[in-house]
């Protein structure tokens, strides 16, 4: 999808300008494209601050109302996306506070157990001369490409991502599914580069393990 790309900044700014003008003119198609482009990401970000999906949907709804009301005052000092997400996180944080559920971003990072290994330690030799070497190395290369690319594998990946804690899910979705850069994700979520990396690493490691288990199963049955 255009607009998510990291390179063509001038194009994005130009696209923003066109979109903002159309929104100000009351162009419903422009508003619809804004919804289609950002709703899903907005819901994921909102979900990090409030307790339920319903509350997150309310936050997104309220954000779009804020966008409609505020678009005439938008001054293009930031990108349209940054502006929209700033409104969103403000509303989501307020709502989270009212729910008594304030969650500074650092608390999501704290959920990540620093001692939890990226790869199951049983896969390594525990002691003796070869301690630390692989006991059961992954055998990824044996899996046929067609199997990896099968729709079912995609389904497993979606499920593995959905099963992650919300902050990890948000970061991996924005980085790897939406293809945003680390800097963009840090700005959208208001999170430090280091925290972004911790969350992404944990999310990718868990997803990798889930996919490996699945693909190994398939190899064994065939």
């Amino acid at each position, binding site marked *: 999808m255009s607009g998510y790309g990291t390179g063509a900044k001038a194009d994005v700014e130009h696209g923003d300008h066109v979109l903002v003008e159309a929104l100000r003119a*009351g162009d419903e198609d422009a508003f619809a494209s804004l919804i289609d482009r950002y709703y899903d990401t907005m819901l994921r970000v909102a979900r990090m601050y409030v307790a339920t999906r319903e509350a997150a949907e309310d936050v997104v709804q309220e954000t*779009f109302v804020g966008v409609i009301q505020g678009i005439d005052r938008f001054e293009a000092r930031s990108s349209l996306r940054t502006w929209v997400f700033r409104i969103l996180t403000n509303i989501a944080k307020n709502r989270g506070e009212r729910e008594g559920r304030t969650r500074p971003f650092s608390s999501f990072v704290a959920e990540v157990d620093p001692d939890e290994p990226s790869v199951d330690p049983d896969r390594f030799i525990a002691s003796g001369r070869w301690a630390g070497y692989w006991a059961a190395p992954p055998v990824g290369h044996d899996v046929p490409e067609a199997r990896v690319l099968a729709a079912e594998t995609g389904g497993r990946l979606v499920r593995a991502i959905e099963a992650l804690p919300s902050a990890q899910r948000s970061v991996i979705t924005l980085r*790897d599914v939406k293809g945003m850069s680390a800097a963009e994700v840090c700005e959208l979520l208001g999170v430090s580069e280091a925290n972004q990396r911790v969350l992404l690493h944990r999310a990718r490691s868990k997803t990798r393990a889930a996919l490996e288990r699945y693909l190994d199963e398939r190899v064994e049955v065939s």
Partner: protein
Amino acid sequence: MVTDYLDGAIASDLRARVDAHLALCPGCASVLEQIRRVVQLARRLTDHDIGTLPTGNRDRLLAAFRAARQGG
């Protein structure tokens, strides 16, 4: 460190050491390959796969937009 490595966010001397290790260690090379694969597969997912926008909400938002523009 894997994430830093893939993001190109590690110092070049450390990167060289990681590369040297990967060349000799098929296990670690596979882990890296599998993580690359996760990223690659994730990029193939569409909004349809991970989509969450219920039609009712979209319609409600569009109605709010119309109302606001007519009122303003």
